[in-house]
């Protein structure tokens, strides 16, 4: 729970020595309360005050980076329960399970599918983020071999090693030491041994218990054993349990600052049936999972889940948008067509995708409309004849194109006359309404 300025002030030296750059300790305390200053700036603060303030100012859900290097995944740091309040911070990671009982050739296939899972959607690169290697055989040797095979083929992909056998954990972790994997499988029966292995290899410890009381008690115990980075599993497996436990965990962390459950949550979504698994994973995305474990990588499922995650994790205040400028699609010549649209990411990527499909090189003028779609921007007065003509004039594009012709979206056909009035010497052509009409439209003119 955040402390108020006065509460913080009580913990400061109260000498008003100004070494922190603030006129008084109270002024500094106020800045701290607003998170506009860092406690380090005061050289005289006591260890006791540091501890209390550090604990109080720690984010309610512990920030943890899973994996290392460019494919590492940030988890935790969430601050709200509903996305309209404030952006959800760290998009959940999707992991796919590989059992150590799987034949080598099949393991290779899954790892290859993970490597090939990356797609580009609305300007973001999205992929299956992690691999969950499970010790289904219960044999440390087999587990080690499976981890070795996966780590060799996918050296950059963050790994979750799932076993409740400390010997298997040790055998697996030593292969990926220093790669910040998750060791998933600490429970009431093996907490000490697993905590020790996790400490040795600086792994994040995945902690499972049945129910939230038991889970909270267990994370406290493990913390006292010296492990700080944990991901937690409440034992929820059915959709009903997932929504209940994930909601209560998030509320406890955020509204009560309950530290024992202030860790990223892992949700196991594996199901026999692919559509149902997709739905359980959707529930995980919507309801507070930091890691969602799937049984299979399938392109169609990935696309749906990546898109769902992207939707849920966009900033509710600021639509995703692209920079205002004149983009080139292909290699346009002075004769190539010039089209205009708004800077809402979705609009831009749909339209530029269709222009690419047409194979006709084009210029695409993308106008800043505060991230609104064509019709929304038009209705909001941000995509008007005067704004469009001003943008075209100021862009200097006149000097680059031979025909002064501007193609506008079909939905705003109504603007064509007014734009022509404001852009002397220009001709306005109304394009199709839907972007999927663009290839035929461009080809018919070529």
């Amino acid at each position, binding site marked *: 729970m955040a402390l108020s300025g006065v509460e913080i002030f009580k913990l400061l030296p109260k000498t008003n020595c100004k070494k922190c750059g603030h006129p008084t300790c109270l002024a500094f305390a106020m800045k701290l309360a607003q998170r506009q200053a860092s406690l380090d700036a005061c050289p005289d603060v006591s260890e006791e005050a540091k501890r209390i303030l550090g604990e109080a100012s720690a984010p309610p859900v512990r920030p943890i980076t899973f994996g290392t290097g460019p494919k590492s995944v940030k988890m935790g740091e969430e601050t709200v329960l*509903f*996305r*309209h309040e404030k952006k959800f911070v760290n998009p959940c990671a999707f992991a796919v399970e590989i059992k150590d009982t799987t034949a080598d050739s099949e393991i290779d296939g899954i790892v290859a599918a993970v490597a*090939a899972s990356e*797609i580009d*959607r609305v300007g973001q690169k999205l992929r299956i983020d992690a691999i969950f290697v499970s010790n289904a055989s219960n044999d440390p040797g087999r587990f080690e071999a499976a981890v070795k095979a996966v780590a060799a083929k996918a050296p950059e992909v963050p790994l979750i090693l799932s076993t409740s056998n400390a010997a298997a954990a040790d055998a697996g972790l030593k292969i990926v030491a220093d790669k910040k994997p998750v060791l998933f499988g600490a429970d009431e029966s093996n907490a000490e041994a697993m905590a020790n292995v996790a400490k040795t290899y600086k792994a994040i410890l995945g902690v499972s218990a049945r129910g*939230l*009381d038991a889970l*909270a*008690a267990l994370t*406290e115990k493990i913390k006292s054993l010296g492990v700080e980075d944990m991901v937690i599993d409440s034992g929820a497996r*059915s*959709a*009903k349990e997932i*929504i*209940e436990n994930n*909601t*209560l965990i998030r*509320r*406890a962390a955020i*509204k*009560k600052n*309950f*530290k*024992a*459950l202030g860790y990223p949550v892992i949700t196991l979504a594996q199901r026999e*049936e*692919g*559509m*149902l698994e*997709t*739905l*359980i994973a*959707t*529930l995980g995305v*919507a*309801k507070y999972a930091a890691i969602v474990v799937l049984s299979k990588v*399938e*392109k*169609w*499922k*990935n*696309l*749906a*889940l990546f*898109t*769902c995650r*992207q*939707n*849920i994790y*966009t900033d*509710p205040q600021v639509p995703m948008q692209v920079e205002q400028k004149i983009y080139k699609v292909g290699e346009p010549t002075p004769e190539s067509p010039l089209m205009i649209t708004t800077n809402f990411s*979705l609009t831009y990527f*749909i339209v530029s995708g269709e222009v690419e499909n047409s194979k006709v090189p084009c210029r695409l003028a993308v106008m800043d409309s505060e991230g609104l779609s064509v019709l929304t921007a038009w209705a909001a007065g941000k995509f008007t004849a005067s704004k469009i003509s001003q943008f075209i004039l100021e862009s200097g594009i006149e000097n680059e194109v031979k025909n002064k012709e501007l193609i506008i979206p079909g939905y705003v056909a109504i603007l064509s006359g007014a734009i022509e009035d404001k852009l002397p010497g220009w001709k306005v052509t109304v394009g199709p309404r839907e972007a*999927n009409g663009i290839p035929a439209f461009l080809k018919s003119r070529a």
Partner: protein
Amino acid sequence: MAFAAPKETYPGKVFQIAIGADQSAVFGGENVLSFHSFEGNAPNRPVIAYEIQDIPPEDWPETVRKVYEGVSGDPVTWAKHCQNELKAKAIALRLIGTHPDRENRSPEEAAKIVKDVLSSINIPLIILGSNHVEKDAAVLVAVAEAAKDKNCVIGKAQEANYKTIAAAAMANHHKLIAMSELDINLSKQLNILITQMGFDKEKLITDPMCSALGYGLEYTYSVMERIRLAALTQNDATMQPPMLGDVGMYVWKVKETQAPEADLPYWGSLEERGIAWETVTAGALMVAGAELLIMRHPRAVKAVENFIDELM
């Protein structure tokens, strides 16, 4: 640190609605957020209605068109197929053929179709216009009369045409869908306007407007969550009608449900992708608060029903 589960109770409650001549489909009625039965009362499952239309679904993509091949030529056969073979719990008949740019069917023709469909099924019927504000006003009045006392759902009343449609729904004892565009204030205002006419607020269904996965889902999702929170935390009666997710229509027109795998190999199987698109859109909106869903593909419906089984 002892753990006390931070459960929440709310002063408000969602109205419960029963539809159909026999009142066989019941939804709403909860006093908690969707599927939060661990802290309150969530007595009813969301209801999924199969969408059919008055004209053959030539503009539906192949994946979903082909499952109705042989039955979708006329609405009566189609409706019976959904009831008898697919075990639908409700049917949503969209009178898209009345749209002036389509077949431009008259209100009388639409009324006859509604009568024929009603007499051939015994599950609840949702009757939707073509979303042309002027034409809907005429068509929905005629069909509301044709379906008198069958306790159907009539939709959609919008700001521009709610008066005539709400009056017809009221006179003929139907429930009514009130649709506004992705804005909690517009939605509240429309519900107020409709109830000010004397329409019973407990017979309304709010449609905050659907949007498909990848095409604005987050807007619908958040508007639904906000409406539901207003209903529960502020006990705001104008926000307490159950909500509709008109999923199929929005999903089966986006590129992901239509582009062949040959063109976009990294998008995977077109068939599975289309079904997943409908499934995920419906699932997400249900978690946000929708309790009446209109869907098209039987496999998507099946998956969502299984999901509900697990959630209840």
